């Protein structure tokens, strides 16, 4: 008999055979933050998309976004996080170029952030998928300011 068990994978499948956006994740693993720009109307989307919501073209180019941004808003969650995740968690909206990106802020000093703090991309390695492919998520860390 099966015992009571959670059967859930909290992370997206990212490999080429499982995700049209696999190039995003391949570049993220190299420390780059990229997104899709429509090849026809040039609209830049965040998150990256499978086709353009403006002109409906499905040809797109991958463009690099800046790897540094600023905190637009944030909250620290102290309690009530899902199974498999640890509190406290620092969640932020990061302004990167024209995009506003939801991401956790990681690093030992993460809870010292304020609105306007500078942050830098810090890709987060999470559990491999069931076939052993490595997986990464977008995360940012505070940029140390001198003086």
């Amino acid at each position, binding site marked *: 008999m099966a015992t009571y068990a959670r059967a859930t994978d909290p992370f997206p499948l990212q490999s080429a055979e499982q995700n049209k956006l696999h190039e995003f994740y391949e570049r993220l693993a190299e420390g780059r933050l990229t997104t899709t720009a429509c090849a026809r109307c040039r609209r830049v989307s965040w998150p990256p998309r499978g086709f353009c919501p403006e002109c409906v073209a499905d040809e797109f180019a991958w463009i690099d976004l800046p790897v540094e941004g600023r905190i637009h808003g944030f909250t620290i969650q102290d309690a009530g996080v899902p199974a498999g995740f640890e509190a406290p968690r620092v969640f932020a909206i990061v302004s990167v170029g024209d995009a506003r990106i*939801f991401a956790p802020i990681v690093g030992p000093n993460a809870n010292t952030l304020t609105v306007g703090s500078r942050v830098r991309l810090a890709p987060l390695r999470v559990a491999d998928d069931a076939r052993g492919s490595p997986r990464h998520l977008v995360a940012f860390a505070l940029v140390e300011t001198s003086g």
Partner: protein
Amino acid sequence: MRPVALVGAGVTRFGVRKASYRDLIWEAGKACFDSVPALRPKHLDGLVVGSVMPERTAFQSHISSLAAEALGIKPSALSARTEHMCASGTVGIRYAYAFIAAGLADLVMVLGVEKLNQPVADEAILNMGTGVDREWEACHGLTAPPCFALAAQRHMAEYGTTEEQLARVGVKNHTHASRNPNAHFQKGATLEQVLWSRMIAAPLRLYMCSPITDGAAAVILASGQWARDLTDRPVWIRGTGQALDGFTLSSLPDDYSHWPAMRRAARSAYAMAQVGPGDVDVAEVHDCFAIAEVIAYEELGFCEKGEGGPFVETGRSDYGGDVVVNPRGGLMGCGHPLGATGVAQDVEVFAQLRGEAGARQLPDAAIGLTHNNSGMGEHVVMIYGRDPA
């Protein structure tokens, strides 16, 4: 379009229930049928079930047929399940309304049901993460509280809304719930209790958040002719509206203290009902978190933008004020069994507009409003009247 009215309503006890998914369907269905003695399940020609995650919580799909069999309904005109996260119940009511108004069905039950609590507590929270985008948000452990915390922080920074004003929403709704024998929490709450409850996601504390709750609720919608035959006090659907700004946090408007989709949904509903915010006597709004009710006052037009904090602080959303908001105790006091919530809001408006709300009754309530949302960017509004027009 044909006129449509509520003719029956019933709700289970909300809480951490020692009951199966089907037990909850039976309880709400029985309570609803008991409110319309002339009606038997075989008379209904439709059923819509609002339910968000029985696949995870009861390992069950094929929900509308399961519920039809449990309730003794044999749909001949409409059978469907609606899933729209926290607004699933009201989205189901809109479907039933549209079918009846169009002449495609005559008598439809809408039942909302959720069994969220699990043997392992943090699994229930894990499941709530199915409501945000897995690839870009839920993968980080995001659930609802941090999203609404971001809105609260923005509202405090932009309009000077205070922690005490947010706490006042919790005090009001927990106090209302103390007069509701079906509420998850019935002990009320003092300002000190709310302000000193533990922090969940700053600035939202435990008593400013709705809990994870099991429960079910059901209403029966009828065409005008059927409604008059079945009861001398039908509650008429006067208007409805739905609008969406976006799903992911990145897709929402830049300033999370403004929820334009709610304003648009309300505008549609008011225009259809030919009433304005000042005409609303009683409103059941989606207070999943205290900040949501504050923003709802503003976007529904009960007060100006930015005035939501003072609005609750001065009692204008309570008995004796401009409009009684969340008389049954809201999501914070009654709990939030996702798919059941929107239907339970209607159960309360049905009772208030018929003068059957007992200790919670607002005298002479004639116009009621319900607002149900699924995240900050997706909103549904219904307006009900004691009179058909």
